[in-house]
């Protein structure tokens, strides 16, 4: 996988993960192109399209949020759909019935979850349970620090 983007129907970016180094300009171009291509697709079309030398896989969840991934030639597109699905499940489990607002207000958590699931464009952990456990323990660490400092902060120090 080369990149993973989450954006809304209105063209607002919610998450961007790049697995290859690109300049800011190149990143902006990719984001623009993806939004243009994906948002223009009619409903009920197939979830794949070709863009430059990459295979693009996209899926719409929660009525208005698009998940879009850029794959290399040797990546399995059908499996990529499963990867996107798994990420959604992880988000769902963590936030409990997740919706777009959760991802907007807790974007850093969305990144933490992603980083426990994917790395270097590949799957890091195939077990939902294992990912959940690591996230919980990491969050506990954070809460522990917050309690030590006697600050009435929530699980995010922000």
């Amino acid at each position, binding site marked *: 996988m080369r990149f993973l983007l989450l954006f809304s129907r209105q063209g*607002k*970016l*919610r*998450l*961007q993960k790049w*697995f290859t*180094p690109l*300049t800011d300009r190149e990143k*902006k171009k990719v984001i623009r192109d993806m939004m243009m291509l994906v948002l223009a697709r009619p409903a*009920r*079309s*197939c*979830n*794949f*399209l*070709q863009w430059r030398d990459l295979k693009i896989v996209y899926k719409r969840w929660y009525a208005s949020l698009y998940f879009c991934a850029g794959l290399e030639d*040797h990546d*399995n*597109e*059908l*499996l990529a*759909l*499963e*990867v996107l699905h*798994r990420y959604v499940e992880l988000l769902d489990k963590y936030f409990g019935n997740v919706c777009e607002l959760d991802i*907007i*207000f807790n*974007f*850093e958590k969305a*990144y*933490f979850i992603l*980083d426990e699931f994917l*790395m*270097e464009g*590949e*799957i*890091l*952990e*195939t*077990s*939902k*349970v*294992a990912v959940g456990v*690591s996230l919980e*323990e*990491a969050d506990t*660490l*954070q809460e522990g*620090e*917050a309690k030590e400092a006697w600050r009435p902060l929530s699980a*995010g*120090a*922000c």
Partner: protein
Amino acid sequence: MPAPIRLRELIRTIRTARTQAEEREMIQKECAAIRSSFREEDNTYRCRNVAKLLYMHMLGYPAHFGQLECLKLIASQKFTDKRIGYLGAMLLLDERQDVHLLMTNCIKNDLNHSTQYVQGLALCTLGCMGSSEMCRDLAGEVEKLLKTSNSYLRKKAALCAVHVIRKVPELMEMFLPATKNLLSEKNHGVLHTSVVLLTEMCERSPDMLAHFRKLVPQLVRILKNLIMSGYSPEHDVSGISDPFLQVRILRLLRILGKGDDDSSEAMNDILAQVATNTETSKNVGNAILYETVLTIMDIKSESGLRVLAINILGRFLLNNDKNIRYVALTSLLKTVQTDHNAVQRHRSTIVDCLKDLDVSIKRRAMELSFALVNGNNIRGMMKELLYFLDSCDPEFKADCASGVFLAAEKYAPSKRWHIDTIMRVLTTAGSYVRDDSVPNLIQLITNSVEMHAYTVQRLYKALLDDISQQPLVQVASWCIGEYGDLLVSGQCEEEEPIQVTEDEVLDVLEGLLVSNLSTPVTRGYALTAIMKLSTRFTSVNRIKKVVSIYGSSIDVELQQRAVEYNALFKKYDHMRPALLERMPIMEKTASNGPTEIVQTNGETEPSVVEAKHPPPVTQPTNQANDLLDLLGGNDVVPVIQNTVSTKPASAGGELLDLLGDLSLSGGTSPAPAPSVPTSQPSFFLDGLTSQPLFNDIAAAGIPPMTAYNKNGLKIDFTFERANPNPNIAVITIHASNSTEADMTDFVFQAAVPKTFQLQLLSPSSNVVPALNQGTVTQVIRVLNPQKQQLRMRIKLTYTHKGSAVQDLAEVNNFPPQSWQ
């Protein structure tokens, strides 16, 4: 200074902004606050501020002033700080900023931290944006962690190692020992990432690949366990156990089995098992099947298995799910070359996909359909494809039209069918046809001698209907110009001849000239067509009038043409019939290459009387040159020709590159003197001086010579002087082969210095038989107006005993009689 606002609050505030300007104002205000907070070096709120900065960065605002703050967070002792700091580093920093190197030490320390989650953060960041320098510094640490028993760290270290290898391939060796027992892990996360690491190493190094082949049995075992094992809630996806791992293993098996009989054999069973037992009701099962099919096709599988794979793809084609149909078409496209017959069986399903509503599927189906066209199914397929061309979206039309032309050219069952097909494309998708198709079509029509009358009639009728599609109009006007006489004489065997008068034809052509729909190029075609008709029609006066009107046209190109045609009427009327004669048959060397004009044997070359009054030889050739440009379409005539091999005739350009400073008299080199145009003169000079091509060989007593003798290949030159033009030497090469193996795909190319001009004719064959059993002959004509010493550089390519051979040589030992 009041505490900086919290992240959530900022997000809420920004979302209330109703306009872009309002949002920008809020952002600027907050950035200012954050900047002053950073200046105060406040540890407490740094984390919060950086988080806010990251949010604003995601909205598209610049955030580079936070880069150093991220580093400070990373260096902090608190996990909370580190978490945000590392995230910031991954979002804001990359290898292009020198700042990132400052992280190296922090990461090194954190890789050895006591808390595994800190170590995890460090590995993640290194694996995400680590530059080559960082990777070099820290590879040792990663390798250490790859050997740990902590599976949480081990899996992260594995993917981090993948990143290191991608950045610094030379370090791959260092991870080899750690891979020894990676596959004996029980933890799926470690297994999966290990397979990824092994895949990466095998893809990059053939040695590694050979080394890891011994893992095939182990991989097969793991895969088998996954399939046979019962329900495992942790890894289950719709009833399948860890599909992600299964797919990855299948991919590694593909790489290991490719080209290796033993490994392929070891996998046959498990592949068959997966292919038959996987549940296909959900996408996940099909994902596994898809990967299995790809693997079966790539390794040396037995034919039964291959048939199974293609059948799976065939079933995919009938699946309701669009994604699966798309994936099937993509895979079939990959396999159509190697398993053509098997794919042919599914042809009707594929053709049905042309009617699918989905754009991606249509495109794949179109590509695959063209790949499946062959001599047997051409009629049926073409019907479907033409129907598709009619109804498809504009984005497909250009590609489809080109595909139709290519297919028609290769497999046309009859010339009439071919012309009809072309007509259909031009009339239905005429404006989407590529520009380079026009000269190709013209050349095709020229060569179908018996169809000229039919073609021009149909084109004329099409023009009457519609003059908006430029490629159609261009081809039609060219044809009318060439074959207008056939049109008015009413001879047509193929269909009912129409009654057309000369005036009607000229009306149509003049209509093109004045119409707003015609592009300048089309107008050029029309004017030239009218001019050509002056030798075929009787109403010359009308044509003269039209031509003279355009002598003052605003369009420079039209004006120039008209002026020159006028001159042709006035001063060179005697040359007019010859110059405007029917075009000879053009020989095509490659289906997509530029056309070139070659005098063929027996072609009635006009016996043009040599110019009586003394304009220098260059002047008529100037006009002839222009005419040739106009008449022949666009591509310039390269003089160097390769016929039997399918290399495009732009070999002139190639040779220029390869043969160095001996420039060719091909169309690509600039004319040596301003008045002598490039390649055409040798053609026209011959014509104008009424040379039949193959002269009687009045051997002027020039001795033959051996030009090349190496590796068993001997090339002799024999000379004839082309009477009566003493400037042209005709050289015949005789290539013989004294080795025991034939030399096939034999191509002879030659280049001469600038002051010469050279023409290569077709060789007798491209196989030089072994043991001197025969020779390949080829004729070269060299024009040497300045009587300079003849030098030549030759290039030979051929296949001998399975390997391609190429050689360059200079020939300097020409006998003086050949050029004096």
